[in-house]
């Protein structure tokens, strides 16, 4: 049900998710932030039941923080973080799976385009992509991204693609997801570009 998608560009990545938290016929909240900030220069859009969403993203981000503390401030690259995530999903699969599908994006200086985006499903398959989407949203947004995405785009163009996808979802997706949160990860770190509904509102 959750909409999670991401687009990479020259200099970073953009990740967008809807903000709905619902179960069965009840809507708990419309301002949930489903993009977990993993480290200073990486973030992960997560889809799935709220329990797994929160538990998995906190488990990963705290373990990444522990690595930095234990290893004298050494940061893990986005590729390493994605691989760690994949490993945890694969390990948990045959014990007690995390039912989360994620899009992990980060910025590294030594990577050619700066930004790298990884798509992972709950089984633990991980693949580096230029753009990706999880959930029902993929049926609507992947074709748009196939058409609009170009090598060497800038942040503004990438955000335009995200907005194009959101407009399409609002028009054609059965579920009404009126609020979206969009975060950008670039050389300056993770920042929220747009949050239709403020996650810190009670």
């Amino acid at each position, binding site marked *: 049900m959750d909409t999670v998608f991401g687009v990479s560009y020259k200099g970073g990545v953009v990740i967008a998710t809807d903000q709905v938290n619902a179960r069965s016929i009840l809507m708990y909240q419309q301002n949930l932030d489903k993009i977990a900030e993993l480290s200073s220069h990486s973030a992960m859009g997560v889809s799935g039941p709220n329990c797994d969403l929160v538990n998995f993203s906190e488990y990963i981000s705290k373990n990444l923080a522990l690595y930095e503390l234990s290893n004298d401030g050494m940061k893990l690259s986005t590729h390493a973080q994605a691989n760690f995530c994949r490993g945890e999903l*694969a390990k948990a699969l045959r014990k007690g799976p995390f039912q989360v599908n994620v899009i992990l994006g980060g910025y590294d200086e030594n990577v050619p385009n700066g930004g790298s985006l990884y798509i992972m499903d709950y089984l633990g*398959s991980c*693949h580096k992509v230029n753009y990706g989407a999880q959930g029902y949203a993929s049926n609507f947004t992947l074709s748009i991204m196939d058409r609009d995405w170009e090598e060497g785009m800038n942040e503004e163009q990438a955000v335009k693609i995200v907005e194009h996808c959101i407009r399409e979802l609002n028009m054609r997706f059965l579920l009404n997801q009126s609020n979206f949160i969009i975060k950008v990860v670039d050389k300056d770190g993770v920042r929220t570009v747009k949050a239709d509904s403020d996650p810190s509102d009670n």
Partner: protein
Amino acid sequence: KQYYHNRKMSILEYNGAAVIAMAGKDCVGIASDNRLGIQYQTVAMDFKKVFKMNDTLFVGLAGLATDVQTLDQLLRFRMNLYELREERTMTPQVFTNLLSNILYEKRFGPYFAEPVVAGLDEKGSPYLATMDLIGAIETTKDFVVSGTCDGNLYGMCETLYKPDLGKEELFETLAQALLASVDRDALSGWGGVVHIITKEGVMSRELKGRQD
């Protein structure tokens, strides 16, 4: 989760794959398709299923993508450990036995992957092997296949294969066998990659196929 499909897909068909390997004259070739899907939806068109273990040994892994990736990592780990301890390169026969052992260890909760091993043994002669998801080994002198279109691949190989092909002819044969097979399978395709291994080195080429 899928509303509009009625046939229950087996776990081995969840992501889709096609892997093929053939023996030539003092060379072996191994090829795979490029598709990564989630049931009927295509997620990526550059997900290769052949992994280089060393200059004369490649393994192709068809099946559930998560297990394909786990096995690739496990095999490199175990191979590195072997080479550190034994101070010699692992032969294809030993590698095949190692892989079989790793798979059988999980006999009652297996890795959903069916591998294909292609390499040159110490004397430089071609070595091919395949196994099922629980590690039952079969070695052959001609060709081995695995994946969602293995029936198609068997048919193409049986028809096109000739013994003692040179590396260019082997490449053509592998390419045609793979492309024709994946074109009749919804779950595999989107191009492919072929590696031809000789004692001089490895020649790798991308295949341009139907992008559907």
